[in-house]
């Protein structure tokens, strides 16, 4: 199979949505055993391209060729039957959480009308086992998927997509909710697939990954092919082709550090987040943006939940500008000026029924109130200025939130917490599926407006933190195991701290 001939080809593909030209004359060849990465800013047209290839948009310009023959997919099913399998960004759309691993792996069989009413469960189980072995899945097949981690679910979703032995596998942001180590397992699997001659189309905002994985990179910008890159790549080239030059952020060091050195905005003293976990001590200076990283389950989100009053700490103190706050409810936390942008915006932040304005003003409707009535006019003024200063791409304040791209939706739910003055703002995985330009926009806005307050940014992806944080703190199994200042960031060392098996309270001792 590995002869380098084009398995699939798209020629001069184009698509318009009304007056918007989403994709314009894009031609790509997919070769057997090759991993082709597509990168581009939010709304550049990556998803449109994928959706045309996988049969979601039946109405497009140009040609799709399968092994030299022209085809036209009218449904996703037709594409699937022609050997194109797609794993979409939202993992839980790819698995059935209430079923077992075995049932998930054989779902296509289970749902097929040819399956007899009383089917041979053991035979199916054998099949599932076989799939699992080929894929290198080390998961108990009898476990229910809802008990599994995100990465395991992701693996199952991919394994399911592979059940039909596809020739082209499309992965849309497969690592957006995986930790570095989990992603590593996924990459190993992709390597095996390449050896089997599968062509892989890989979409991601994580350029580091692409640098590590891809055989070829296509950059899409404003619906057009901006550049094709071959190995060896430079991440810088990709970024420039995607969005143009992006300036490095000015770290705290270059700003007025003296004042901030001495003054603490947040201090955690012997804070015990949950039973059985050693107490945390952490200091954040005024005007500092702290990056917090670690694997999933390292205790980052739990810490944020305690700070935001969602969970109660076992013991210890949370001090804001020297005063103990310890919020007991979310309401109290907000009153104390502690704001929290939760992870997973679709689940926890976006109100789908509301437009941009209503989504943005939700936490602080009080400031727009006149004699008990919310003034839409006042809201619009404020929201308009936020849209402008955060660079939210939209038609206006009254557009549906769902009409925005993921990155712009994220900007809206971030903006909602920047309407009022905060003492501490916590962003939990704010950059999931957000491109580097939007990340930069959000980061710059926070940086410019932080004043003498403090921000915590939680992310599993260290590169995202390097882009924005003044200092990066690593958590591992509920314990703070290390930290680095922006000027002295050593990526490999951080990764080591993130992944190591913790047994060391040495670091904790050393900072005391």
């Amino acid at each position: 199979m590995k002869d380098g001939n084009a398995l699939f080809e798209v020629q001069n593909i184009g698509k318009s949505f009304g007056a918007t030209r989403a994709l314009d004359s894009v031609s790509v060849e997919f070769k057997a055993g090759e991993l082709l990465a597509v990168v581009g800013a939010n709304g550049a047209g990556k998803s449109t391209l994928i959706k045309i290839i996988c049969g979601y948009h039946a109405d497009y310009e140009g040609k799709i060729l399968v092994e030299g023959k022209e085809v036209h997919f009218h449904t996703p099913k037709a594409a699937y039957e022609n050997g194109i399998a797609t794993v979409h960004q939202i993992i839980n759309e790819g698995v059935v959480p209430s079923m077992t691993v075995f049932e998930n792996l054989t779902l296509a069989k289970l749902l097929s009308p040819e399956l007899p009413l009383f089917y041979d469960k053991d035979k199916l189980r054998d099949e599932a086992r076989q799939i699992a072995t080929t894929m290198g899945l080390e998961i108990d097949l009898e476990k229910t998927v809802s008990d599994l981690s995100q990465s395991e679910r992701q693996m199952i979703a991919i394994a399911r997509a592979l059940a039909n032995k596809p020739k082209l596998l499309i992965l849309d942001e497969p690592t957006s909710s995986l930790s570095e180590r989990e992603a590593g397992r996924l990459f190993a699997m992709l390597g095996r697939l390449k050896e089997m001659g599968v062509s892989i189309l890989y979409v991601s905002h994580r350029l580091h990954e692409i640098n590590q994985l891809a055989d070829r990179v296509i950059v899409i910008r404003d619906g057009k092919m901006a550049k094709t890159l071959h190995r060896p790549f430079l991440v810088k080239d990709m970024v420039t082709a995607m969005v143009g030059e992006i300036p490095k952020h000015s770290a705290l060091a270059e700003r007025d550090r003296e004042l901030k050195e001495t003054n603490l905005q947040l201090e955690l003293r012997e804070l015990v987040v949950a039973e059985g976990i050693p107490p945390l001590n952490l200091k954040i200076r005024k005007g500092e943006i702290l990056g917090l990283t670690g694997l999933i389950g390292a205790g980052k989100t739990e810490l944020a939940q305690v700070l935001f009053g969602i969970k109660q700490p076992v013991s210890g103190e949370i001090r804001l500008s020297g005063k103990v706050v310890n919020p007991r409810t979310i309401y109290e936390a907000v009153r104390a000026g502690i704001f929290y942008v939760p992870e997973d915006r679709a689940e926890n932040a976006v109100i789908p029924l509301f437009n941009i304005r209503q989504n943005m003003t939700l936490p602080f409707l009080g400031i727009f109130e006149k004699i008990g009535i919310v003034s839409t006019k006042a809201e619009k003024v404020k929201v308009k200025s936020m849209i402008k200063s955060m660079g939210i791409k939209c038609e206006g304040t009254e557009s549906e939130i769902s009409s925005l791209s993921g990155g712009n939706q994220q900007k809206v739910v971030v903006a909602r917490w920047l309407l009022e003055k905060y003492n501490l703002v916590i962003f939990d995985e704010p950059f999931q599926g957000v491109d580097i330009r939007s990340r930069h926009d959000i980061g710059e806005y926070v940086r410019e407006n932080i004043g003498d307050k403090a921000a915590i940014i939680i992310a599993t992806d260290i590169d995202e933190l390097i882009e924005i944080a003044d200092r990066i703190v690593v958590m591992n199994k509920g314990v703070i195991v290390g930290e680095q200042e922006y000027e002295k960031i050593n990526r490999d060392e951080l990764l080591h701290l993130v992944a190591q098996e913790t047994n060391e309270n040495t670091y904790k001792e050393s900072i005391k």
Partner: protein
Amino acid sequence: MSSYIDQDKMIQSKSEFFKRFAIRYGFLIVMAMLFAFFSWWNPVFLRPVNLFSILLGATIYAILALGVTFPLVIDGLDLSIGSVAALSVMISAYVMVVLDASGVLAILVCLALGAGIGAINGFLIVRVKIPDLLATLGMMFLVQGVQLIPSGGRSIGRGAVLAGGVVAPGRFSDYFLFLGQGRIFGIVPTAVAIMIAVAIVVFVVLSLTRWGRVFYAIGSNAEAARLVGAKVDTYRVMAYVISGTVAALGGIVLAARVGRGDVSSGGTLLMDAIGSALIGFAVLGVRRPNPFGTIVGAIFISMLMNGLSMMNMPYYVQDFVKGSVLVAALAFTFGLSKGRT
């Protein structure tokens, strides 16, 4: 994902325009056509007296529907409203006729009972975590039983003979009856005025205040609402308290209209009220509970029943037509505007 669906939405073709027009005004057009049809069939339909009777016919369940809008907004449902209204009828009669107490006291007792039942509903749903449908269904049966207890299963009218053979001493007070039978300045029926007042209050609360915004936010994504600091549980309990209180108010107006405590009152109130609120989703194609739509829905049902009666349709056909209209209206709004979620 959704952004692409929405780009699809941006296609500005003619068919798209008609579709949107149909979603927005389709229901009102159908209603206008029906109105024209009934007027043509029988000119009596158009007489002011009849038009007022359509409006009056709608008031009771329109009031209930306005109350149940709150549970609907938070993505819940309250099935106990019909029996709460019926309880209100019995209790107001009991307080005034049997206990010979004042109408004001009767009103206060009824409203308090309605609020209390709503609070229990809210407690069962929020704390005990019984699904809203089941909790309020259970409450519906419970309240249906309770309303029969004070009078021993008998209706209470003026001079009713009580269990011990005693004749009830009291009667419905005049100002109480005014709520159901009177006219303000001799023109607007009080019941209609009450309905309009409730509608205005519901509209102001839901559409103009912070609370309304939070109610809608909870209905759309409760977790997100919780994470911006909204006291979601309190709001949810409040939704049921409001719905129970307003249902009790509906019962008071009904009692005032019939002037006696009838055990069989409130039979079809639940379905008519919920039907009105659901038809309200279709009015203007907003696909969410809204007071304006609810009122229009209630008037629509009343007009339909009135018109069909004039055509001498038997009552069992009327129920069938009512149900069909409800299903059609819902299929219309939700089916045509699928892409919007």
